[in-house]
């Protein structure tokens, strides 16, 4: 488990070791949904989508 800064608020986001690229994580600090763009190195991007 590593903590990476949230691109939205800068708060720490814990990235589990078994998380897969493309997996969505939620920032506990600001609640925004983040996409794990890559795992090595860990990179997070704010996720937005059209929903159903």
């Amino acid at each position, binding site marked *: 488990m590593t903590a990476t800064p949230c691109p939205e608020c800068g708060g720490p986001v814990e990235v589990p070791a078994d998380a*897969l690229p*493309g*997996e*969505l994580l939620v920032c506990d600090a600001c609640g925004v949904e983040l*996409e794990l763009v890559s795992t090595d190195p860990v990179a997070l991007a704010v996720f937005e*989508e*059209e929903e*159903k």
Partner: protein
Amino acid sequence: MTAQALADAVSAVRSELDAHYPVLVDTTRWTWGEDGPQVQGGVLVSAQAKVYVDGLSERLAAEVPSPAVLADLGSDWTLHSWVLPLGRATLDLHRGIEGDDLQTQWTPPVILRWFARRDRRALVQLPDGTLGWMTSNRLMNAAPISDPWADVRRAAIGEVSDAEDSLEALAERARRRTGRPYLWGGNTDAAADCSGFVQSLLHQSGLLLPKNTRDQRRSGVRVAAAAIEPGDLVFVRGNTSGLGHVGLALPAEEGTQVIHSCLTRKQIVEEPLADFLGRYAFTAARRVLRWTV
């Protein structure tokens, strides 16, 4: 700073909101107190509360408290009315007042929160928090003595609760619906979209999920893709469409399966978990209920 300045600022913000929303639900009453602006009542959604806070603090150069958000499920239940739909027919809730885009459905009996009415349409809220418009001629005023939603068991982030039935019973109920049609916004036994399908299945197991996949993805606890077990929610997105999609993992002798209401195949289908994850891009798995076998 005067009460008049506040009244002018409030009226300016209110016309901004009025211009933007076809029907504005606004019960706010603003007064000037010892510590600056004070507010009672609220607006329907948090975006509208933010317009008030931003608009007033800019115009008055003062700290402005947020109005209540009436659609928050925790908001004071005395701030709105309750209505009871007559009959047992499925309620269709639409996104817009015109009623062409199905938002969700609900099967009575249910008591709804009522917020507004225009022409023959009513803006109501379901126990899962979904807001929508429906025809108002089926609605009767209800005057409950206490909050009729107080006992609704809703999914919450970080929480896993006990299911009221077994995994076997869940699987049986889910599989009985295989082959039934996909319906955008649908949420009945006869037809459902992906999120409506899992919502209605787990509701019968005692837990009410939010209606849309985005909010469902924030329910319960995270499960790693390699650790998915029967009963878990599996979230994916279309590789080309990017559209969010959800299915429910089920037990089978040959390994874990996923059952889901599939937009492309236009019906409820079951397939091996590996095939499901192979065709779509995995985005999350969540566990919301603890099952007895």
